[in-house]
């Protein structure tokens, strides 16, 4: 069975061929927004050496967005809406972290994004503000998703949106647990998944996969190392 399907897969053109075929529309896009922090900061520390050195222009990727929604946001918050783009047909707003609470209120009450689907973060250690705080929202009224991002530096405080969407309570705790982003105004900001005495924030890129809090392991599990 396995052999069959491998054989079937063989004729499929390899990866490198496809972007070349579909590559025409996008190079301008990738280059067109150098200010987007996500894209230029991409080469991560942990990534293995990439065989084809310059990645050919992707078929899909971030495209600047300027629809009604973004216009409303810009009209309301002006410069606080740093950027807006669409990626894989999904709208993304990058906002100023200081105004996150106000923007959240507006998003929930005026734009009717009632459901905070998810809140998380991404770490780009080489960037000046290393974290992307990501809020995934959904609106029952419009059947639409919206992603709000805020760039946060190490040690900076972000306002907690726990008062806007109560579900953010645990999600922010998890973000704090994994990234060490501190949320101002959170009623109970402590680790969610890891033990409270744990040292370090595992989902940061500089926290190696083999690294662990050995002091904790030694004390609580009675073994030298969990690895």
């Amino acid at each position, binding site marked *: *069975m*396995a052999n*069959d*399907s491998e054989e*079937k*897969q063989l004729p*499929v*053109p*390899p*990866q490198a*061929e*496809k*972007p070349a075929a579909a590559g025409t529309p996008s190079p301008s896009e*990738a280059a067109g927004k150098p200010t987007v922090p*996500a*894209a230029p900061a*991409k*080469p*991560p520390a*942990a*990534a*293995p050496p*990439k065989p084809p050195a310059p*990645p050919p222009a*992707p*078929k*899909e*990727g*971030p495209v600047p967005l300027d629809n009604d929604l973004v216009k409303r946001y810009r009209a309301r918050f002006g410069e606080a809406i740093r950027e807006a783009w669409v*990626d*894989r047909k*999904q709208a993304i707003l990058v906002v100023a972290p200081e105004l996150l609470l106000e923007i959240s209120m507006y998003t929930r009450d005026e734009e009717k994004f*009632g*459901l*905070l*689907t*998810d809140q*998380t973060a*991404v*770490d780009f250690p080489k960037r000046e503000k290393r974290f992307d705080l*990501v809020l*995934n929202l959904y609106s*029952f009224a419009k*059947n639409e*998703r919206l*992603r709000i991002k805020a760039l946060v530096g190490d040690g900076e405080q972000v306002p907690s949106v726990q008062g806007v*969407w*109560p*579900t953010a*309570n*645990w*999600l922010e705790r998890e973000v704090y647990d*994994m990234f060490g982003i501190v949320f101002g105004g959170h009623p109970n900001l402590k680790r*969610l*998944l*890891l*033990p409270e005495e744990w040292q370090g924030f595992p*989902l940061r890129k500089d*926290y190696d*996969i083999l690294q662990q809090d050995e002091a904790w392991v030694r004390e609580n599990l009675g073994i030298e190392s969990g690895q």
Partner: protein
Amino acid sequence: MPSGANVETTVLGADEIILNMGPQHPSTHGVLRVKLRLDGEKVVGSECVIGYLHRGVEKIAEHRTYQQFAPYVDRMDYVAAVSNGLGYCEAVEKLLGVEAPPRARVIRTLLTELQRIASHVFWLGTHALDIGALTPLFYCLREREEILKIFEKYCGARLTTHAFRIGGLQYEAYDELEKDVERFCNDFGRRIDEYESLLTENRIWVGRTKGIGILNAADAIAMGVTGPVLRASGVEWDIRKAMPYAAYDQFDFSIPTRKNGDTYDRYLVRMEEMRQSLWICQQAIEKIPPGPIMGKVGKVLKPPPGEVYHSVEAPKGELGYYIVSDGTTQPYRVRIRPPSLINLEALDQMVRGHLVADVVAIIGTLDIVLGEVDR
């Protein structure tokens, strides 16, 4: 070790005590630990302590290639591995900008719906067991076994199936798949009525579940609750309908909802969902289209830089994958939105004012899987 060794006996006031339920407790479905503040047997507050099963799945993802990571997601909600796999594969496909061929999509839908029944049926058995009905568990496991057998025949694994591949399927549907599913559908359609006759009208069952753990629609949305729990509160929302994925747009089914948002309603919603899933399965075996099962994806996956959020309606609720790509073979970041975790967050609100016995019923009705909560 006697489990009582885990009980902290902190005496607070005259009659407020802390009861430490779990992490080794028969009804916390794994290693959930709930610290209950009790006044007599009445719960005045609760706090969940989770993370006992934390394996750092999201961290692991950053050090695996896209394909290598696929089996890991099966180990989150191990009761519904197929649904997890579907979500991940589709998220990566979206990131790559490819689509699985129609045949693969229908087979995926079929297996996912079977998985939903398996998950719900397992929930029903354990939930009934929590409330003290021993027998339904065994009937339910019998049905689940039939589904697992189909999975085993299809891909060789029963629990952590890794049934789908990024871009489609690895295995062609085996010859009697349609026949097996049809036989299962016929049996199960009869038997689900049988289970309902054991519980739905039972005075004790109704007494134990009606009015327990009420979550109204506004609270449910605010708490981010999804899936059957949300639908039992009266919000008619199902990702399969709202943002169809796989082949759900080709099938006819309805979204069962209830008004009260109590444990009994959640029970009824899940029972009805099983019937709907059965109906989808029956439609699916009728129209599995011919054609290839694997889309045009290479052996080495290098999605263009960017990010995607894709979610599916897992049996527990919205299972979302937020994947950031930096153009390499390994995901830069994979965030999994676990429905169990976020549904569990509503526990505190739901248990207040109830008795210890109800806490067990409410944990059961949330249908959490600790593997997914802790990841």
